[in-house]
């Protein structure tokens, strides 16, 4: 088991399986550029059985289980030629039904150029007190809500029709190479009306009225690609997370570094400055320990020169902090020692709730790697898959 620093504070989880509880089976839900796959784990998280593909040839950006009912899967899908949609399964992928009203922007007035959803990028189950509520983030940046478990979707007008939205999201070229994205839709576990969103580009935003209004929250975050030194918005968070047991603590892996924010402060601290200089603090994904708000994992990538977005120097590694970002430790045991040029997308680095925590990441080269010891060692549990866009962990009761 991995060692920990003295400053580590473990919080008691709200919900832990009692010893007498029936064992859960972990399933990794993979969204790839060419379809969806399931990886079924055994009780010890040693053996993994692959199942799929589902929707071979379709681009699957996100595939998520509803933790509130333990059986509803939502999948964001499109293909190279057909438009974007959401599929839903309540029998672990045996059958799928398409949303009757997928996320779509409002029809523009006559003579005006309207927007169209290119793809649904992100899916977030709503608050525990609101069964059936889901949120979706799209490209271009739009926020959508479902109140019926993903069957029908409507735009969140407080964002999609906000007077400032056009400025917040920027113009052409303000997003990622495959389109600007809404992501990191976070719901405060204490209050369903308190939400955060991240946009690439646009920045991080907060709402305290269930999405009725939004305010930028990017103070202290660098935006080296913008002419203004400290802009209010226009930043590029790649992924933002809040700690489930300490929701006033947020972390983000940004295009310009790794940050932590402890509310009520409104200023992010660049904890990535404590990363090794030759590795840097650029990446897509960030993972938070479910019971320890000081422990965080990132997967750095090369953000120098032309932004290769590969493992730095061809030597992939996870980095972990156990003290909120004061120091970082390299964790690469079992990973390729050299000439490995993959990276990990923002939805493709996740963890389970077990003790010790299991970590999982999918790569742009179609592999899935797992650690059963909180990152101390790694092994490949799937290979030769398409480019992995997303991984999520689902618990399946036996």
């Amino acid at each position, binding site marked *: 088991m991995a060692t920990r620093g003295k400053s580590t504070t473990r919080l008691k989880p709200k919900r832990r399986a009692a010893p007498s509880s029936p064992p859960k089976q972990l399933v990794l839900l993979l969204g790839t550029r060419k379809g969806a796959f399931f990886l079924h784990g055994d009780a010890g998280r040693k053996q993994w059985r692959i199942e799929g593909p589902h929707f071979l040839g379709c681009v699957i950006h996100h595939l998520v289980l509803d933790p509130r009912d333990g059986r509803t899967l939502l999948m964001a899908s499109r293909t190279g030629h057909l438009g974007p949609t959401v599929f839903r399964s309540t029998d672990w992928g045996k059958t799928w039904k398409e949303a009757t009203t997928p996320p779509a*922007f409002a029809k523009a007035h006559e003579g005006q150029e309207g927007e169209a959803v290119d793809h649904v990028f992100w899916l977030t189950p709503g608050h525990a007190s609101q069964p059936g509520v889901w949120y979706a983030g799209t490209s271009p940046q739009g926020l959508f809500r479902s109140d019926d478990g993903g069957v029908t979707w409507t735009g969140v007008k407080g964002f999609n029709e906000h007077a400032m939205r056009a400025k917040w999201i920027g113009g052409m070229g303000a997003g990622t190479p495959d389109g600007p994205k809404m992501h990191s839709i976070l719901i405060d576990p204490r209050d369903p009306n308190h939400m955060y969103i991240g946009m690439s580009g646009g920045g991080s935003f907060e709402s305290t009225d269930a999405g009725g209004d939004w305010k930028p929250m990017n103070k202290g975050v660098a935006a080296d690609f913008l002419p203004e030194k400290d802009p209010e918005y226009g930043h590029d968070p790649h992924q933002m997370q809040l700690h489930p047991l300490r929701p006033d603590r947020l972390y983000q892996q940004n295009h310009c570094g790794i940050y932590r924010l402890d509310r009520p402060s409104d200023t992010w601290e660049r904890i990535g400055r404590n990363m090794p200089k030759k590795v840097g603090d650029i990446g897509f994904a960030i993972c938070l320990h479910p019971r320890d708000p000081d422990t965080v994992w990132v997967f750095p990538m090369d953000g120098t020169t032309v932004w290769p977005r590969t493992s730095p120097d061809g030597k992939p590694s996870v980095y972990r902090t156990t003290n909120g970002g004061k120091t970082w430790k390299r964790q690469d045991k079992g990973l390729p020692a050299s000439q490995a040029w993959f990276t990990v997308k923002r939805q493709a680095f996740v963890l389970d709730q077990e003790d010790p925590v299991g970590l999982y990441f999918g790569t742009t080269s179609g592999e899935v790697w797992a650690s059963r010891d909180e990152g101390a060692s790694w092994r490949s549990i799937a290979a030769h898959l398409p480019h992995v866009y997303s991984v999520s962990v689902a618990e399946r009761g036996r």
Partner: protein
Amino acid sequence: MKVLVPGPLHSYTGRKSEVEADGATLGEVLAHLDGRFPGLRFRLVDEQDRIRPHIVVYVAGEPARSLRHPVRAQDEVMIVAALSGG
């Protein structure tokens, strides 16, 4: 009229590559098809009523650029999924 449906849409049409539809414009034809095969239209046409970038629809051999394109009963409508990239 006869509508030729490409492979990516066969999951909507019960695996049929050829179906019948009615309508005086391409928009009406697609609306009719969507009534029979729910969800099909949105995969072809976005929320602003634009034909999606990698979809081409031929009406009597001529490419239709908009949903207002007229269609006659004897015309053949051919939907093509013009995939690009790898």
